[in-house]
């Protein structure tokens, strides 16, 4: 399975994005400054928008799912149960797993942003997909929820291609590749340990660990904790 971008260009009024590269099976992290085109890239990757130039080839990808940055933009149901059913899945297990047991009649748009995100991610991770693109999946989630969903992504996404586009600074699932949008161009930085030196928006905690000579082996909370323990010896 492979998502191949060849000389792709998206041009908007005030910025443009150029992307060439290949997303293979695994978990990819894409970072980049605010307004650099991450959400546009998410639309291109899932075939919801077409680039002005270049080609995107989807080898073996039959079902793509995009999780939008703002979960309220996904809402089509007037109750939590209806909203979950709109993803083609049964409400009860999702309500129980996401902590909404007994609240099937609640209005999704009355939830806080964090709660709505929690419900939305619980749905998205249950829908089978070859390609899953998550645009800012953790915004609004509390640290416990972030940790839970990082674990859930690692557990549910052992097959297929998963692409996370995020500003998150502390919570990540174990990732296979790190990419960054630098000056309007999507750049593959490499595997976690080899990416740190060229990663402009490297999270400060990871930068501190690199500076202390103890780079974490991956970005997951476990790997960061392990590196912190090494530091303290």
């Amino acid at each position: 399975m492979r998502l191949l971008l060849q000389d792709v260009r998206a041009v908007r009024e005030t910025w443009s994005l150029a992307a060439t590269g290949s997303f293979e099976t695994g978990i990819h992290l894409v970072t980049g400054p605010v307004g650099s085109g991450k959400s546009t890239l998410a639309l291109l990757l899932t075939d919801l928008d077409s680039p002005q130039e270049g080609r995107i080839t989807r080898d073996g990808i039959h079902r793509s799912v995009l999780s939008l940055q703002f979960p309220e933009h996904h809402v089509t149901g007037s109750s939590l149960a209806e909203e979950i059913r709109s993803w083609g899945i049964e409400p009860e297990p999702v309500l129980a797993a996401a902590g909404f047991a007994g609240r099937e009649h609640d209005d999704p748009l009355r939830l806080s942003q964090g709660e709505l995100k929690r419900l939305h991610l619980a749905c998205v991770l249950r829908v089978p997909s070859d390609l899953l693109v998550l645009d800012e999946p953790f915004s609004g989630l509390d640290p416990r929820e972030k940790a839970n969903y990082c674990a859930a992504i690692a557990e549910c996404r052992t097959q297929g291609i998963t692409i996370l586009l995020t500003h998150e600074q502390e919570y990540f699932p174990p990732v296979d590749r790190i990419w960054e949008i630098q000056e309007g161009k999507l750049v593959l930085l490499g595997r976690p340990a080899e990416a740190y030196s060229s990663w402009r928006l490297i999270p400060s905690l990871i930068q501190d660990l690199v500076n202390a000579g103890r780079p974490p082996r991956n970005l997951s909370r476990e790997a960061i904790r392990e590196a912190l323990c090494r530091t303290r010896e």
Partner: protein
Amino acid sequence: MISLVSVTAGILSVPELSIPEGVTAVIGPNGSGKTTLLRLLAGIDLPEQGTIRIDGKPPRECNSGWVDEYPDRSILFPAVLDEIASPFRFRKIPGDEIDGMVRKITERMGIESLLHREIRTLSGGERALVSLATACAGDPDILVLDEFDAHLDRDLCRITDNLLKSSGARYVLRCTQRMAMAASAACVIYLEQGTILHSGSPSQVFPHLAGTEFFPLQGLAGI
């Protein structure tokens, strides 16, 4: 000083709380009542019971700025310029003075390049910045931000954290999921299920949260 006495609203119940001047971070799990507390302090909602006073005045008599956790819900106008100018226009300040005031606030925030954009073309983070600029534009005494930083990158978090420390507002109340930011605030309030379990300076509050996901890892690093 902000004081709350015997306040109840929805799931929130606050027997007594004082909030000092400066930046206060409100933290806690999703659904713990952070937004409810902030909406009371901004004067958007009234408590079912109890009294809230900001320097002796009820919140609705104070000049306050608000940024919603859903950025689109804070924004009224389709054009960035109109949005940021709106607090001045609502006060019927003459148009030629407004231009200068809008320029000043956008320069201070480093978002001059967004000024002639339409809101619908902005990214999530850019919308948050426009909401913040608009909230600050009216020179509020109290600035209330509900997870405003959820859509910002590392550098913009740093820039806006610094801006908010010198915003001119006597009180900045913000809920955040960035514990490193909360650790640098003057005051931290930790909520769980509608109850304030801890409040005080970061060095008073965070020891109670050791071993939980709410404890900033930077604190463990010693690096």
